[in-house]
């Protein structure tokens, strides 16, 4: 690929519309995204440090960080495990209805979050389809931390499956054949050859699902029950503060979340670069 053939430099702007598309893109991006986002940071910059820490480190807020973090993390882990199996089955096996199942994986992207929220609550409530079987076992899902985890698992699944599928498709069968011909059994081929190949994509999928779960609101608020200190997620606290007209407090928490998501976005970009380089070798 990297043979030193001089690439003829095409003149930079033969095509028309550079000025128009640049001007429009920047204006629209600025008005819709950048200026409003800047408002959050500027609002917080007007707060004193003590006021800021009082808002973002209150016990109720800390409890919500803990719940959002651990529930998103657990949902991400479950999605890596089952998402890998789903992606593997969809890429490798032929079975009737495979294309329908494949299309269905995107349901969490397409189904409005509020609809997902009330539907999951109906299923996992103590008289619901699944809840009635869990109730005698002493497992409560709706209106507990487990409910938050279930909603976030629902939301995150397509991120993991859709990140893994193209990588699985590109895996060359020759590598597996080579492993087998060198005496590896199927289990050794999977754990020593295939899984290491998939690792960057698994990590990327996890990070995408995790980032989405941290900010998720609609699917969680119905099933979580929203009990202070126990089942309040961080986005809900922003809403609660807004309803009390505490705009500064709401914005301070929002800035903590924004910084976290931007760092995650950076990490995801690095992961994707690594993943691409990893697969070119």
């Amino acid at each position, binding site marked *: 690929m990297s043979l030193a053939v001089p690439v003829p430099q095409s003149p930079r702007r033969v095509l028309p519309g550079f000025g128009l598309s640049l001007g429009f893109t920047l204006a629209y991006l600025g008005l819709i995204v950048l200026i409003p986002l800047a408002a959050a940071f500027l609002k917080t910059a007007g707060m004193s440090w003590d006021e800021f820490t009082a808002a973002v480190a209150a016990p109720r807020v800390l409890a919500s960080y803990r719940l959002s973090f651990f529930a998103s993390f657990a949902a991400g882990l479950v999605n890596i495990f089952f998402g890998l199996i789903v992606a593997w089955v969809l890429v490798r096996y032929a079975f009737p209805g495979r294309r329908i199942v494949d299309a269905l994986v995107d349901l969490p992207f*397409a189904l409005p979050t*509020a609809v997902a929220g009330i539907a999951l609550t109906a299923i996992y409530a103590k008289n619901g389809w699944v809840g009635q079987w869990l109730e005698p076992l002493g497992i409560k899902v709706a209106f507990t931390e487990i409910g938050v985890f279930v909603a976030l698992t629902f939301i995150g699944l397509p991120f993991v499956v859709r990140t893994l599928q193209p990588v699985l498709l590109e895996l060359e069968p020759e590598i597996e054949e080579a492993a087998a011909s060198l005496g590896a059994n199927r289990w050794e081929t999977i754990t020593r050859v295939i899984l290491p190949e998939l690792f960057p994509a698994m990590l990327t999928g996890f990070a995408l699902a995790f980032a989405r779960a941290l900010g998720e609101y609609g699917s969680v608020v119905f099933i979580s029950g929203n009990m202070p200190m126990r089942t309040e997620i961080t986005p809900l606290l922003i809403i609660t503060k807004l309803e009390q007209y505490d705009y500064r407090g709401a914005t301070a928490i929002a800035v903590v979340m924004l910084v976290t998501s931007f760092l995650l976005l950076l990490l995801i970009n690095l992961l994707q670069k690594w993943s691409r380089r990893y697969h070119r070798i």
Partner: protein
Amino acid sequence: MAAVFARALATSPHAAGPAPRATQDPAWVRWTLTAVALLFLLFFLVLPLAAVFTEALRRGLGAYFAAFRDPAALASIKLTLIAAGIAVPANLVFGVAAAWLIAKFKFRGKSVLTTLIDLPFAVSPVISGLIYVLVFGLQGWWGEWLLAHNLTVIFAVPGIVLATMFVTFPFVARELIPLMQAQGADEEYAAITLGANGWQTFWRVTLPNIKWGLLYGVILCNARAMGEFGAVSVVSGHIRGETNTMPLHVEILYNEYNFVAAFAVASLLALLAIVTLVLKALVEWRHAQSRTL
């Protein structure tokens, strides 16, 4: 039978050539994994979807359709259509302009711009609403100016449209940018060399090449625009019959324990999701076909 025979051949890993079935899992593994995958999807995807329709029809068709005779429900459907009707075309024009810029020209700061376009995906829906409250709300930057000119953005339709535009901002652009980058600019160069002007080149050369990607982006953009909950919830003010979109109307009915009506309105949104998935699969299939031709 053939599969059994082939697998029997492949049982000796030290056979001379690479075993033809070396990349194939044993049957019991295939069955187990398929069963696990399907069961997981059944519990996490199929059951919620089925629950929406079951709960909506719990008291029969009469109660189901009664939910749509409520003027507030009709107003919420209308508002959802208005919000998507403005946000989707706006983001479509933006997506095409941004993709043209990024795919056809070389300039500094391109990768920064690409990252900034994706930014709304990294922002929690709740924060997407909050930032507009900070700009246009009564205590916001332009709050007093808006009040002096008798304009309302927050707790009114414009705020809902803006929040919807924010959350659906990247959809079309992020479908088109990689597609147009992969296609390069050679065909456009040829058109310009042959004497076409910029718009002719775009309409006759670029657009036919990107139509499936464009449609794909619009379908996803529309699904999110109609279904957005968190962002519009913050800016809406929940005025019944005026500033409630369909998802917000679902929430209000649900919190009033009017479950049948809540799930009835939700079933429309679930139908929208199903239509979205079907269209998406069709476009993917057509796109794959047009590429192999």
